[in-house]
């Protein structure tokens, strides 16, 4: 492998980055020696300016290593918004829903933007279904965390249940039929065992019945 190939591979995120959430996603660009190359790992005090006004917070010694976040709002904690965002997929490639991604991967720039989009649509007075429809129209069916139960998608929901029910019903029917036969045979053998023993034709019937059960 050449230097060029190695650097390109590393810049693309490489295997290890792609092996993880947050790794190898579009927009994250985990470069080989990315982010402030040459930055020293110097000892740092907890705060650089201990006399900042109350409420505003003091500047961090090295803010570049901490993600920038806005102040959490009531919209961020709205149960209806959370529920809605759990039904929509983040487009960063993480496979997570918007809510989980924006509260998990703080390097993702997609989920906060999608969250703002959800808030805006709700702000316009759209219902939950309206928001889902708007997202589907804009991003396609893939934006939904679970396909709509319509058309071919119904097969996705129904096939496992139908197959398992059919298999279970068949199994139950076979077992019931077999247990009834055995019950009938045992009743017959209790009632007429002596007669059967004396009658070769009866013995032949019993042999055939037993063979039938065995099959």
């Amino acid at each position, binding site marked *: 492998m*050449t*230097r060029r190939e*190695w650097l390109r*591979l590393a810049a693309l995120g*490489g*295997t*290890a980055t*792609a*092996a*993880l*959430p947050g*790794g190898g996603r579009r927009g*994250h660009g*985990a470069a080989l*020696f*990315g*982010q*402030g190359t040459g*930055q020293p790992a110097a*000892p740092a005090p*907890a*705060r650089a300016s201990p006399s900042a006004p109350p409420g505003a*917070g*003091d*500047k*961090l010694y*090295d*803010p570049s*290593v*901490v993600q*920038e*976040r*806005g*102040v*959490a709002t009531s919209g961020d904690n709205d149960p209806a918004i959370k529920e809605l965002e759990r039904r929509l*997929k983040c487009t960063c490639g993480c*496979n*997570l829903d918007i809510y*989980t991604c924006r*509260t*998990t991967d*703080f*390097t993702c720039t997609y989920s906060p933007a999608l969250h703002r989009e959800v808030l805006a649509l709700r702000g316009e007075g759209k219902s939950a279904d309206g928001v889902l429809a708007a997202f589907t129209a804009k991003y396609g*069916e*893939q*934006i939904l*965390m*679970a*396909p709509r139960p319509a*058309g*071919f*998608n119904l097969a*996705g*929901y129904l*096939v*496992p249940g139908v197959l*398992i029910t059919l*298999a*279970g019903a068949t*199994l139950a029917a076979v077992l019931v039929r077999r247990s009834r036969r055995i019950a009938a045979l045992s009743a017959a053998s209790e009632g007429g065992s002596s007669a059967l023993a004396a009658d070769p034709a009866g013995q032949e019937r019993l042999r055939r019945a037993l063979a039938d059960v065995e099959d």
Partner: protein
Amino acid sequence: MTLLGQFCLWLALFAALWGAGVAFLGRWQDRPDLARSATQSSYGVCAALLVAALCLWKGLLSHDFNIEYVAQYTARNLPTSYVLAAFWAGQKGSLLFWATILSIFGVAAQAMTSRRHEGLLPYVAGVTNVVVAFFVITMIFSASPFERLSFTPEDGRGLNPQLQNPGMTIHPPMLYLGYISITIPFAFAMAALLSRRLDTGWIHAIRKWTLLSWLFLSCGITLGMWWAYVELGWGGYWSWDPVENASLLPWLTMSAFLHSVMIQEKRGMLKRWNVGLIVASFLLSIFGTFITRSGVIASVHSFTQSSVGYFFLGFLVLAAAAAFALLYSRWPLLEPEARLESMASREAAFLFNNLALVGIAFSVLWGTLFPILSEAVQGTKITVGPPFFNRVNIPLGLLLVALTGIGPLIAWRKASPANLRRQFLVPAAAGLLVATVLLALRIRDSYAVAAWALAGFVAGTVGQEFWRGARARHRMHGEPPLLALGRLISRNRRRYGGYIVHLGVITYVCAFAGMAFKVTREVTLAPGESVEMRSPFGHTYRFTHLGVSQYPELNRFVSAASLEVRKDGVSRGRIKSEKRQHRDSFGRNTFEPSTEVGIRSDLREDLYVVYAGSVEGTDRATYAITLNPLVLWVWIGAGILIAGGLVTMWPGGPLIRERRGVGGASEAQAGYEAPLVGAGLGE
């Protein structure tokens, strides 16, 4: 080192191909010398792969960054434990790990299998050698861990920060061990089919292997859940990701096998089904590997897309075709020796249990593959995520829990109504009691109530079994209750170990149900500011932001945000969440900043704090705080399940003592030495 490593790979390949060739030829031509050579080749393959593995470890530990794999996954300042773990962190190293461990298992199978099954061993060596050869071919022609760079970087890229977690040093190997060890039962099944020795001998030969494999998978899956929970920061441990699903699939089919094999041992039934389950488990383990490594399905866990996927797909198709063709050709030899007689029998309960397990496996596989199917049929890309899997699988899971309680209560062959009444009374009462209490507490989540009520029912079943067994011993032998319980378990390890496993499973189920009540809140706090949250158990937590500290540590620069926690007004100490910027040995940043979750666990709930970031570069911090009920019980459940598995497979016991002439036949382990031919009718 790389030359030696590469040479050893070639050596292993030739030895494996030779072993496979002479194994089948030797048995076919009835030549013991060739069969012996096949068995011995397993040792040669293992030795060559061990040397190759040592070569890679030597490269990793000596920081030979001219080796592409070493440069890709390690750095000079990476702690040694993670340097060692980097062996399986990447695609290429993990393939070598897989092949090496499989060759060790192959040798262990040859060395540890009873001489009674000697006739199967050449075929076992042949099949394991074929699988090893496949992995070595994949490495040699597509993903060699010994590939060199045309230059030497001054430092490596380092291990992804999220892999720098103690869980990652043990979770992947455990999962791999589970996947890999399935090959041995599969090899025995193929050996039995090839040699036409289809009595229960091969089942006995693989009993411990299947349990071992199932235990490794259980450990691996749970460790993966734990790693996801403590490392990824989303407050959960299972997200129905395709790679997670892929690990669950063989676990489900192995669980089904562990139940249905009892029917074969007891009654000589379900022979075809059991072979099918072993074949399916093996194929699903390869399928899981294919998903992880091919990139065919989007997953957060998968390795990068590579040509390795084609190798796995080809192998999967060939292995499936060969195995099912062989099974079909031996179909008449797998006639059952008895028939199911009644719906009200343990055999029927086990069958329905198998149906549920395989049904869940099918629905998980169906959901995992449905996006591909949908795109092929409709031309539309869709996503199948947790809402789909929960909707389809939770009812099936509840059915399975119910069957877990029902199975042990029903007699073999046929249970009478009186017997059923006597057996079901206590467990059903326990389940109803739990449901009543939960409804009285105004818990309205129907799935959670059903899960806990069914867990009560299963606990009632298991408790009743232990109680009756111990009481019987107490009455018969005058043993004190605890001694009676201990002896009951030690003399019937398989049965009571299985019950302990059931207790572990319901502990998991109860913990999973708790997630329905988790509470999450995002807050932004300046130092000294507080927020209050009410937990599902009614406690009030007050979190006060103490500030953000920044300091260098090992191979990273840490920004730690701290909260003081008060529970119902009483101080509970501090909880800290970190942002970590990893740096190489030259102080340069590597990777994006990662997050370390702050967790405080107790039996009721976890406080789960994530430092999301800061406002305008100040120590005003935004947190995601989650109160997660019952999470600790997931890990406790895993401990119970593993303990039960170990009890079940622990060597020694009455069976061995009996063989050595100590103890009587009456003390034989339940279900292990039951007569098999014409089983059931004479019992």
